[in-house]
């Protein structure tokens, strides 16, 4: 089975989500190979889960003030702050037949690649169901999956060097989550690669590529013309639209 690797590139939040969807469609239609994609968010952005209420999760006024975009994902899960220098996002898009049918087992398998990448960097991390990766109990990676038309899409972030002050000035942390985790200060709940080890962004990226491509036959290429066109269309017809982002 041949895979396509789409090398790291930066886009705005709306295009990033539109590209993941356009690639899912082309993989479902059989016109593209199963795909591993790495990307960054520029300008910085917050993505919220499909079922989240936008006003409850994000301080939108502050987002506007800081020039931070906000987009609703088509995957569930929580709100994530994406800073171009602070993290690396991946997506893996392939037939769901290539993964365990059980959702948690498939999270574990894909997140295992991130755990291994962190291991290559000398960081001991573990998968924490449902969809997190933690180092000493602190979250270093969040992940979200959906399945549609026989295709599994999982995207997630690995925190490289997080600006926690900025992150938590934008994200509202609901009381119920704080109570559950027994830590009043949300900043104590996250960590980043730089907090663990003095490794460069490039080394981090190389480790992720190595781990995600291990044992897979890989060809590096970009989006096809039709994927790019479809992504542009989805960005303007859905992801940039208030009807979508303010759906809840």
């Amino acid at each position, binding site marked *: 089975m041949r895979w396509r690797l789409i090398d790291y590139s930066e886009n705005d939040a709306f295009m990033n989500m539109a590209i993941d969807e356009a690639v899912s469609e082309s993989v479902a239609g059989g016109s593209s190979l199963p795909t591993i994609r790495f990307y960054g968010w520029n300008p910085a952005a917050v993505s919220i889960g499909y*079922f*989240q209420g936008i006003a409850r999760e994000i301080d939108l006024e502050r987002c506007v003030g800081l020039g931070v975009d906000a987009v609703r994902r088509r995957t569930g899960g929580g709100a994530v702050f994406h800073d171009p220098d602070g993290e690396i996002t991946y997506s893996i898009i392939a037939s769901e037949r290539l993964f365990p049918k059980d959702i948690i087992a498939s999270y574990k398998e894909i997140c295992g690649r991130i755990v291994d990448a962190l291991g290559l960097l000398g960081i001991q991390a573990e998968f924490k169901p449902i969809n997190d990766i933690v180092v000493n109990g602190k979250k270093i990676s969040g992940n979200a999956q*959906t399945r549609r038309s026989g295709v599994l899409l999982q995207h997630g972030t690995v925190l490289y060097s997080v600006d926690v002050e900025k992150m938590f000035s934008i994200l509202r942390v609901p009381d*119920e*989550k704080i109570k559950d985790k027994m830590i009043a200060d949300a900043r104590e709940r996250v960590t980043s690669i730089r907090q663990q080890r003095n490794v460069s962004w490039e080394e981090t990226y190389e480790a992720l590529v190595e781990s995600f491509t291990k044992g897979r036959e890989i060809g590096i290429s970009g989006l096809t013309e039709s994927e790019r066109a479809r992504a542009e269309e989805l960005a303007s017809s859905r992801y940039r639209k208030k009807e979508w982002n303010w759906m809840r």
Partner: protein
Amino acid sequence: MRCEKIKGGKLVCIEVALEADKVRSVSITGDFFLHPEDRIASLEESLVGTPASISQSEAEGRIKSALGDAQLIGASCEDLARLFKEAVR
């Protein structure tokens, strides 16, 4: 609005508007997962029009049949029914 972080699961919030002791609208939000995602609309719709006195097990039945073969991750139908019942109260 009734919110709860489900033990071992995700945050679920249910907001209900009542009119003449009947449920006029339902909004279910949170960081849970549901495949396919757009099934949430049928789920919410299945609870609209129910009397405020609906039992938890009846609400759970409606939720289950609205979800059909959809997969809910991070909360159970029982959790949703319980939160709905609490939100209606």
